[in-house]
């Protein structure tokens, strides 16, 4: 059924269709309408779920960790400083290998206090061991939530479904809401490998020694390092599982595409703009404008940020003259994290060819600074003509 709604409702509908059993979240702008909507579904009996009100984001994720350990499908959501306040539990959820799905409605982090959109919040959680998926429109939000539950439960790794605050969360757009039967066919009930059971008590993730140990059954059990290695190993194999998720999704719902990247006019492009989220759709307008001027540019959205689809990205950019990375976040003291990751992927996969594309980095829209399409277009154009700056160039800065 096609409806016109905002991005937060798209996310809430996705969670509802996935039949999450436990929801714990703490309201924070611009995520609040999402959790409000979920609480309304529970209150109205439309969702058979326990909605657990908590006093903080740290507790919200702690509740989800406990409920997921007990074998239920859980949902939470946050933004900005709420995500930062969760940080300790964010790491815990990954180490505990719990398939929690959390919507991150991207917002700038304090200080100074700011409620508008950028992506510093989720990018700052890059190294926590969570899968990160980025959405560019409302259809991708609802579809990504559904794919995320399947994928998270398949690989036992939590997932952040990231979408831009306001630009997506509060704007209205038409999108298709899948039928419950379709979602049920795609996503079977959650059957965890292990669930807490009072009849057979166990301690989960207590002090784990540096070295391996014999467990009570006399079997050699992992030390901390083995557990952390397995997280890394299975994060990497998640890329292949994501392709399987996309294939299954496409078969059942009749839409889908490349699970990792979303290229637009890239095939014959000499220069490719790269970004995360809704910005990449805005860049399509710039690309169309520059194409009319005879400049061969394309744009590629990165849908999967962790695990990083390095090979897919390098293959897509092979033979290009230049790559221009636009980011709403950065690793302070260096450059945008995506730009660094992308350069690393290009070097890894293309250095042997002796032809590496030139990479330039622009920082845009920090703290919700208006991203003007004309300004974006001019900067993209300039980057196809010369090296704009040695350091990442901030578009729209009035310093």
């Amino acid at each position, binding site marked *: 059924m096609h409806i016109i709604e905002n991005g937060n409702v798209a996310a809430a509908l996705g969670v509802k269709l996935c039949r999450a059993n436990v929801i714990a979240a703490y309201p924070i702008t611009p995520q609040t309408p999402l959790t409000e909507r979920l609480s309304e579904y529970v209150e109205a009996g439309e969702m058979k779920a326990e909605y657990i009100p908590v006093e903080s984001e740290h507790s919200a994720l702690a509740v989800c960790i406990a409920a997921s350990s007990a074998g239920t499908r859980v949902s939470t959501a946050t933004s900005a400083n709420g995500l930062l306040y969760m940080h300790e539990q964010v790491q815990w959820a990954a180490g505990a290998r719990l398939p929690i799905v959390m919507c991150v409605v991207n917002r700038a982090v304090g200080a100074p206090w700011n409620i508008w959109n950028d992506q510093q919040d989720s990018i700052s959680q890059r190294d926590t061991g969570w899968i990160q998926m980025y959405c560019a429109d409302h259809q991708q939000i609802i579809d990504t939530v559904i794919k995320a539950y399947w994928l998270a439960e398949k690989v036992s790794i939590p997932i952040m479904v990231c979408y831009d605050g306001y630009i997506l969360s509060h704007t209205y757009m038409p999108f298709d809401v899948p039928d419950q039967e379709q979602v049920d066919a795609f996503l079977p009930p959650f059957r965890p490998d292990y669930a807490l059971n009072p009849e057979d*008590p166990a*301690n989960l*993730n*207590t002090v784990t020694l540096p070295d391996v140990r014999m467990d*009570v059954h006399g*079997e*050699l059990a992992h030390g901390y390092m083995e557990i952390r290695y397995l997280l890394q190993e299975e994060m990497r194999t998640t890329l292949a599982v994501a392709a399987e998720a996309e294939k299954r999704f496409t078969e059942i719902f009749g839409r889908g595409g490349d699970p990792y990247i979303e290229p637009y006019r890239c095939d014959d492009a000499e220069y490719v703009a790269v970004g995360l989220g809704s910005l990449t759709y805005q860049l399509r307008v710039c690309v169309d404008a520059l194409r009319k001027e005879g400049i061969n540019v394309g744009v590629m959205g990165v849908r999967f940020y962790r695990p990083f689809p390095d090979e897919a990205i390098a293959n897509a950019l092979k033979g290009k003259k230049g790559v221009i990375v636009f980011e709403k976040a950065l690793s302070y003291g260096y450059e945008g994290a995506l730009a660094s990751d992308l350069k690393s992927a290009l070097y890894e996969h293309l250095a042997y060819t002796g032809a590496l594309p030139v990479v330039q980095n622009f920082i845009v829209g920090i703290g919700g600074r208006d991203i003007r399409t004309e300004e974006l277009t001019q900067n993209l154009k300039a980057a196809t003509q010369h090296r704009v700056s040695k350091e990442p160039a901030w578009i729209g800065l009035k310093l």
Partner: protein
Amino acid sequence: MGTRNYKRKTSHSEHGPGDGGRTGSWRVERPVFDRSLCIPCKRNKESCFICWLFCPEIVISRTIPPTVNLEYCKGCGICAEECPTKAITMVDEAQFSEEDKD
């Protein structure tokens, strides 16, 4: 032999001795009993057992004489602190030979 085929991906321990490893290896001092001062030893009947009651690791036996499971005793010294007759002394592990140390 590594842990590649271990049945879990996480840290998971069940009720039973030693599932956290042989934690007695952390010990710096070990409790040593002076039977001439220990109440159940002197009376040769079940009595006192304050050391058994207070031991947080449940490694002291409720026997005459009480014994300490040194595989898991961490040498916290609570038994020595609580013993009403000061029958337990914490002795530096360096005082014991390699064989004594398990």
